[in-house]
Every structure is written in structure tokens, then in C-alpha cells.
């Protein structure tokens, strides 16, 4: 049954895991650990994983199962792996100087990030709900700890506790959902669920077990991707967690959770049932509006980005509403989901890199008013942050615009004009609050008690790369979009939709 050759397919995961262990050993072995070596080895782990992932991507033309069907080896998973690796690398680089400044000297940080990335990557390829659950827990446990890594800070501890309690609750929902689905269908394979639905006469209607199971799954995922009405934890946790961790949560955790949700929805569930579709519609609309309206009134940039991240989850759900019943090939524009996850990761990491500069005596201070006069003091940083924010707002010619364009295209191609209009309204609200930091940077004077920005090469590098990528892929998105679309279409191999 077990074929050692299949280990190739989890090569990237293994690489990240092994390097995490190496870093852990290094960090605990030496009393005076060398932070640079620890960082370097961690990044090497991510780079190795990226190379292995690329090799896998080229080697596997036709999607296939591995490990007795527990894992799906397909373009969708490969694409997600890249997003996760990018998010992890960004978070690590931002954290390097930041942790020193807030006086958090814990050897566990880098290994934890790698372990979390390991969980995320598995999540994106899980073809079995049990594997999905386990990898989600691997990810979540690490993130709970990372949230509270700044033990001296009350907000950080609060964030960790809140996220843990709420997260455990959501995991419970997810597990219950899996159990119900298993009870109804007799399998936890996502592709098996799809095959079951494909049989004439099988559906949610008349099968209360499945109905309840699907609803519970939706709640569990809704929590993880911060969809309304399960988004309440997001602002507090995002604000309380140290900035690099928040960046990692907003990008990596969201991408992984959304990938798992998309896989379950697109492979197994969508196009089955009208009631279910309505629920998704309502969740998407609520998420778009709640996130964007909530962000309007925030005075703290980090908290604003937390609310806006809810809005972005809404746009992604909007695209899923447009998923066709007839088959994925009917709506290739859905590839925009992967493109947007990547775009969102890049521009968000860029914005958080700038946020990480704002500390005062070891305490974060990310009020928007702190940005005053930034354009005069550091024009390049102000310009880069503006580009990232405009990209988040979806203004051309940026990657964020192209991504959003495709999400709208996916929704409209699927006939979901109504939700697209809601999305357009959300986008217009978004413009307002994304402009605010830009207004402050360019049009307000410096605050009287300004502190020097704690700029450091690592975070500046992240910012630079993110900004260039946002512009380049905004102007010539063609090939990247093709890859994203092919990757998403690989899901079609699993039957169902």
C-alpha cells in the first residue's frame, strides 16, 4: 500500500519540517544563540521547499492521489505551497529586527513559523477531511503560541487566549461537521463526497446528516477565514498579536484556510443545492460589508487592516458564489481566487513590513496619526506603502486590481451579478479607508512626539520586493494568471462539480 516514491510529493513539507527541527536544535543547544544563523537556516528551509515544490509542479502533469488517497497531488496544492512559503518568508524577515526591538528573545519563534507553514502546506493538499483537520490543528496550535509570544504584553496574551478559545470552539464545529458527513456518506474523502453527490437523487435535501454536517463545516471554515458572522475575533487578535505574526496570520493562515475551504466547496459541494448556495451568498455579502464598514472607523492601522482582511475574504467568497454547477471548466475565471490569494499575500506583507517600523520603547504604536509627514521624511517608504495600500484598495495598475477584476469576473461569469454589485459597493467603501493613511502620510504634518522609524534592511527588502511585484504583476499579469487558472482547474480532476 505504502509507496516510498510518494514521499516526493510531500518533499516541500518534509524540507520545512526538517529545517524546523534543525533550527530548534540550534536554538536550544547554544546558550547564546545566533539569531542570524537561526534566521538563515529557516530561510534556507523555505527556499529548499520552494525548489522541491517547483520540481514537483513540473513533474506532475496529471493530478493524482497519494498516501492511499489522503492527499491530493495537484496544481492547486502546489500553488498554495508557494503562497505559504512566501508568507512565511515575509513574516520571518519582518520579525528579525522587530522581535529584538520589542525585547522578545525566544528561540521558538522561527521553528514555530516553520511548523505552522508545514501545517498550512498540508492543508492545501488534503484530500481527506481527517488529514485536513489534523493539518489545520498543526497550523492553529502554532499560531496560538505565536500570537502570545510577546508574553510581557497584555494585548498579546489576550490575543492568544481569545484566538485559542474561539479557535478550539471552531475546530470542534469542524470536527463535528466531518463526523456528520462521515455518518451520512461513509467516507471522509473529499473526492468520495463529490462522487456521492454525483449520484442521481443524492443531495442535501432529505439527508439531514449531510445537511447538518455541511453547515457545521461551513461554520468551522467561516471562523478560520474570518467570514461574517464568525469574524468577531479577528480585529482583537490581529491587533494584539506582534506585527510579524499578524502579517503571517493575515496572509498564510487565511490563504491556507481559504484553500481548504475552496477545495471542499469546489470539489464536493458547490452546484449541489440551492439552499446551500443562498447561505454562501449571504455569508459573502455579510463578510464584504462587515469588513469594509468596520474598517471605516478605525484609528489604528493594524486594526484597520484586520477589518479590511475580513473584507478581502468576502471578495474571495464572492468569486466562489459564481462557481458553476456544470463544471469548473465553465468558469476558468475562478483561477482568480489563487491569483488574489497570492496578490493579497504580497501586498499585505508589504504593508505590514512598514507597520513593523513603528515601535516606541519596545511597544508597538500603529495609530494612523503616527504616519504623519512620512512622505517628507522617507519618501521611498511612503511611496511603497501607498502602492501597497492602493493595491489593497484595488486601484489599477496593481496586482490587487487585476486580482479583484478576476474575482468580479468569476462572480459575473457565474451569473451572480447581485453579489458582484455588493462587492463593488464594498470596494468603494474600501477606497475611503485605504486612502486615509495615504492622506496622513502626504498631507498631514509630523506628529509632535515623533519617533525615528526602526527601519532595517530585512524588512525594507520585503517591502521593496512586494512593491515591485505588485506593480509588475499589475501591468503584465498574463502568465501568472494562466498558472493560477491551470492550478485551479486541476481541481476538476476530483470529480464532483
Amino acid at each position, binding site marked *: 500500500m505504502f509507496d516510498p516514491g510518494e514521499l516526493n510529493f510531500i518533499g516541500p513539507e518534509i524540507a520545512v519540517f526538517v529545517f524546523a527541527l534543525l533550527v530548534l536544535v540550534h536554538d536550544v543547544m547554544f546558550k547564546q544563540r545566533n539569531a542570524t544563523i537561526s534566521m538563515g537556516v529557516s530561510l534556507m528551509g523555505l527556499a529548499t521547499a520552494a525548489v522541491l515544490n517547483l520540481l514537483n509542479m513540473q513533474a506532475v502533469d496529471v493530478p493524482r492521489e497519494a498516501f492511499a488517497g489522503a492527499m491530493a497531488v495537484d496544481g492547486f496544492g502546489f500553488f498554495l505551497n508557494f503562497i505559504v512559503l512566501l508568507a512565511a518568508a515575509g513574516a520571518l524577515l519582518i520579525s528579525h529586527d522587530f522581535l529584538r526591538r520589542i525585547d522578545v528573545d525566544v528561540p521558538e519563534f522561527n521553528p514555530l513559523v516553520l511548523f505552522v507553514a508545514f501545517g498550512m502546506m498540508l492543508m492545501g493538499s488534503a484530500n481527506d477531511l481527517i488529514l485536513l483537520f489534523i493539518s489545520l490543528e498543526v497550523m492553529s496550535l502554532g499560531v496560538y503560541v505565536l500570537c502570545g509570544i510577546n508574553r510581557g504584553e497584555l494585548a498579546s496574551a489576550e490575543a492568544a487566549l481569545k484566538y485559542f478559545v474561539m479557535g478550539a470552539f471552531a475546530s470542534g464545529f469542524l470536527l463535528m461537521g466531518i463526523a456528520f458527513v462521515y455518518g451520512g456518506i461513509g467516507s471522509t474523502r473529499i473526492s468520495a463526497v463529490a462522487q456521492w453527490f454525483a449520484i442521481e437523487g443524492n443531495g442535501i435535501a432529505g439527508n439531514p446528516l449531510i445537511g447538518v454536517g455541511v453547515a457545521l463545516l461551513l461554520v468551522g471554515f467561516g471562523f478560520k477565514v474570518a467570514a461574517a458572522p464568525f469574524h468577531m475575533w479577528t480585529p482583537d487578535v490581529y491587533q494584539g498579536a506582534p506585527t510579524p505574526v499578524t502579517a503571517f496570520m493575515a496572509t498564510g493562515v487565511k490563504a491556507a484556510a481559504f484553500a481548504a475551504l475552496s477545495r471542499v466547496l469546489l470539489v464536493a459541494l458547490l452546484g449541489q443545492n440551492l439552499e446551500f*448556495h443562498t447561505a454562501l451568498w449571504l455569508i459573502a455579502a455579510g463578510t464584504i460589508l462587515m469588513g469594509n464598514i468596520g474598517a471605516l472607523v478605525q484609528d489604528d492601522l493594524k486594526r484597520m487592516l484586520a477589518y479590511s482582511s475580513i473584507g478581502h475574504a468576502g471578495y474571495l467568497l464572492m468569486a466562489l458564489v459564481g462557481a458553476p454547477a456544470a463544471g469548473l471548466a465553465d468558469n476558468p475565471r475562478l483561477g482568480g481566487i489563487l491569483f488574489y490569494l497570492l496578490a493579497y499575500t504580497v501586498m499585505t506583507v508589504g504593508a505590514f513590513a512598514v507597520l513593523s517600523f513603528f515601535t516606541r520603547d519596545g511597544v508597538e504604536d500603529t495609530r494612523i496619526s503616527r504616519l504623519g509627514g512620512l512622505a517628507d521624511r522617507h519618501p521611498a517608504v511612503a511611496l511603497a506603502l501607498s502602492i501597497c495600500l492602493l493595491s489593497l484598495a484595488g486601484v489599477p495598475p496593481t496586482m490587487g486590481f487585476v486580482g479583484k477584476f478576476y474575482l468580479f469576473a468569476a462572480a459575473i461569469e457565474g451569473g451572480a451579478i447581485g453579489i458582484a454589485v455588493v462587492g463593488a459597493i464594498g470596494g468603494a467603501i474600501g477606497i475611503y479607508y485605504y486612502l486615509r493613511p495615504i492622506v496622513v502620510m502626504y498631507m498631514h504634518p509630523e506628529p509632535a512626539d515623533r519617533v525615528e522609524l526602526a527601519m532595517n534592511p530585512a524588512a525594507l527588502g520585503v517591502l521593496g520586493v512586494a512593491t515591485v511585484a505588485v506593480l509588475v504583476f499589475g501591468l503584465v499579469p498574463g502568465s501568472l494568471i494562466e498558472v493560477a487558472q491551470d492550478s485551479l482547474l486541476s481541481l476538476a480532476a476530483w470529480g464532483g462539480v
Partner: protein
Amino acid sequence: MDHLLSIITFLPLVGALAVFASPGATARWLALGVSGLTFLLSVPLWFLYDPAGTGLEGWHTMQLVEGPYPWIADLGISYMVGIDGIALLLVLLTTLLTPIVIYSSFSSVHEKVSQYMGFMLVLETGMLGAFVALDTFLFYVFWELMLIPMYFIIGIWGGPNRIYAAVKFFIYTVVGSLLMLVAILALYFFHHAQQGFWSASILDLYHVVLPYRTEFWLFIAFALAFAIKVPMFPVHTWLPDAHVQAPTGGSVILAGVLLKLGTFGFLRYAMPLFPQATHELGPVIAGLAAIGIVYGALVAMVQDDIKKLVAYSSVSHMGVVMLGLFSFNTEGVSGSVYQMLNHGLSTGALFLLVGIIYERRHTRLIAEYGGLATAVPKFSVVMLIVTFSSIGLPGLNGFIGEALSLLGSFHAHPVATVVGTSGVIFGAVYMLWMVQRVIFGPLTNQANKELTDLTGREILYLAPILALIFVMGLAPRPFLQVMEPSVDRVLQQVNREVDLLAVTESAAHSGDAVRGAHGGER
């Protein structure tokens, strides 16, 4: 010069990069040089464009076409530019006004000069791109690209309430354009369902035939975006704020070119794409235009701030343009396009003049002035000429455009035209009254006695506008000849007979591909 249009469009953007990087004094001249060169390069367009010549198949008026070069292949999005007679004139207006504005800002902008000049050049690329784009996606990108520099120009170099005005300007425009984006996407899918291939080119999208209900909503989405830009009553409220707060250069570009993009959008996109809805809603839009004319004029009459007066007069004048557009006949639409140019020149000049005295006195209140004719005679003469042009005195450019627009629209919407024409009379009243209070009367205020008259530089940048005011008033023929075939071609599209049978059939087709677009969610 195969790529003349692209060169003209992107030269300012390339120049902007250099301008951003150079110190203030150099940036001024560099920006002037770049925008001047752009103008010089655009002059040959006038000769290269042949109104009677042949361009694209089926669209002989669309010439100097470049592309399509594939850009985002899977939706048929490509880089494609070209101009018809209408776009040609607006491109020339843009390339002419930009160096004038940059030159005029030499004395009014002293802080962050290189950024200001750089933003002006980026803005020019945005405007030119929106005029020359033949691909809807490309058009949308340029349409949004314009917003960012304008937003900064108002927000950084504007008056006391600049941030509010800048944000309001941005939000209003974006709300409209996002809904338009949704409509553009819907058009792509309809086009694919009907023609079997993906295309974002406007000339291909013209072939889409839509069921009335769908067409109605898509037209609304497009029309809202453009109506905000024009601006039409009742979505005009961002304009007075933006105009009054913007620095002189910003106001001139805003009034001179940006507003034209709204009416141009109607003419290029909303009307020919959705002929049934256009005719159906024509009376409503004509009615709103007429209300706008009268309302703008009445509000302008009671302003005590010159700049605000000019701002409201824009609402009024653009109402005339809209009336002309929705006349659906050659006179009306030609007059309307002519009026776009006139308004760009005369209102642009008015804003420049307001800027000139504001620089000297730091007030724009009408009550502060009076008797300028004796203190600054050259200024007063220019002001008078521009005012007469603005109110449409025969012999100057304003008369031709206004007369043609109203003449044309009288055939289509007699009542709205009668109401609108009365507003034009009000227009004469508030402008003349303003001139009377500012220029004539006794010279009582000591500060006004010490005013310096127009400098050589100011005369230099006002001269081209003044010359055009006379030329276009006395010899309108060449301008009308350039645009008329294009106007006719567009009208042919707007007035095309919609084959109802085809609509029903294609409704069944597109119903498969775009589920629920005309029946709610699936």
C-alpha cells in the same frame, strides 16, 4: 511613426519619472519641456487624421490604430489604441492645456515642486490614455489612473479644506466606476456568448445585442460613472468642493479635460453600446441636463467667491453639452463636442485668470475687487474676452457650440431645450454681473490700485487660448469637418435599428452563459 499615439500617451509618464527625481527648479523646466514636446508630437495628428479616409473595417473613422496586442489573453484583453475625429480634438485639447497649466504653475506652486510637476505629467498620461484607448479594460485602467495624481494635486497643494475635497472627489468617482467595471465584465461575457470569442475591444463590444432589461441596467451602471464625472445634476456635488480647493492648475485640468471624459464616455461607451436604453432614458437625461443648466446658473449667481462661481458655471455649461449629446442628431452632437472644447478653453482660461489675481491679492471674494479695468487693463481685456466666450457671444467660440447643441436638441427634446436655453440666459446674467463687479465700477480698494498687470509669462500662456477662442468662433468649419464623419458614425450606431427577433434569440443564448443576469440570482 507607427506608434505615434502610444508615444504621445506615454511620453509624459516617462518624463514624470525624471521630474520626480529632479530638484524643484529643474523639475519645472523639465516638466514644461516634456509636456511641450508632447504637444508638438500631437500636432501632426491633426494632419495624419483624415476625416474622409479609411480606418478600421466598419469603423472608417477610427484611425492611427495600434494593436491589438494581447495583454490578458483569456478575456481577450489587449493593448489597442486609436482615435476618431472626436478623440483627436480632445487629445489636442489635453496636450495643449497641460503645458499651459505647467507653465502657469511656475509662480503659484512653491512647495514640493517636483512632485506637483510629476503628478501633472502622470495625469496627462491618464487623460490621453482614456481618450485613445480602444480596449475597455485599458480605458478603465487609464480612467482610474487619472484619479490618483488629481487626488494628490488637490490634497497636497489645495486650499484649507483640501483633504475633504480630495477624498470626496476620489470616492464619488470610484463609486461610479466600480459599478461600471461590473457592467464591463458582464459585457465581455455577453459578447463571448453571442460571438463565440473573447474580446474587450469596444469596437467588438458594439456588436453585442442585449435584451432590453439587461441593457437598461448596464446603461445605468455606465451612465452613473460618466454622469458623476460630467458632472450632472444631482451627482455634481463633488465638483464645487474639488474646484474651489484645488490649486489653479488642478482646477484648469479638472474643468478643461477631466469633465470632458464624462461626456466623452457617454459618446464612446454608454450611448453606442446601449442604444435602446439610451433612447428610452434620453428624455430623463435631457431633463436632468436642463435642470442642471438652470440650477447651476442660479447657484452661480449668488456666489461671492469668483472661483466657486466659475465652478457652478461648469455644471451649467456641461448641462448644455449633455443636452446636445442626447439630441441624437448630427447638429446636436457636433455642437456638443464643439462645446466640450469651448468649455475646456474658456473655463480653463477663467480659472487661470482667477489664479492670477489670487496670486496677487490672496482673495477670491468678488466684493474685494472692483474697478480693475483702470488698475490692470490688460488683465481686464482678457477677462472680458473669456467671459464673452463663455456666455456664447456670436463671433467667439462659445456661440457656435451652444447654438448647435441647443438647435439639435430642440428637435429631440423641445421642452428640456426651452428650459435649458433660459438657463443660458441666466448664464449671461451671472457672468456679466460678476465682470461688472470685478472689473468695472470705481476703484476704491487701495490694495487693488497697487496690482501689477499681466506679466509677459502670463500673456504668453494665455495667448494660445485667446487665439483659439477667436479662431474657433470665426472659422468653425475645419473643426466641425474633422469631427462630423465620426459623429455620424457614432450616431449610426446609437440610432441603429435593434432587431427585436435577434434580441429574443440572443437572450436565450446568453441566458445560458450569463445565468440570471436579467432574472436575479440563479
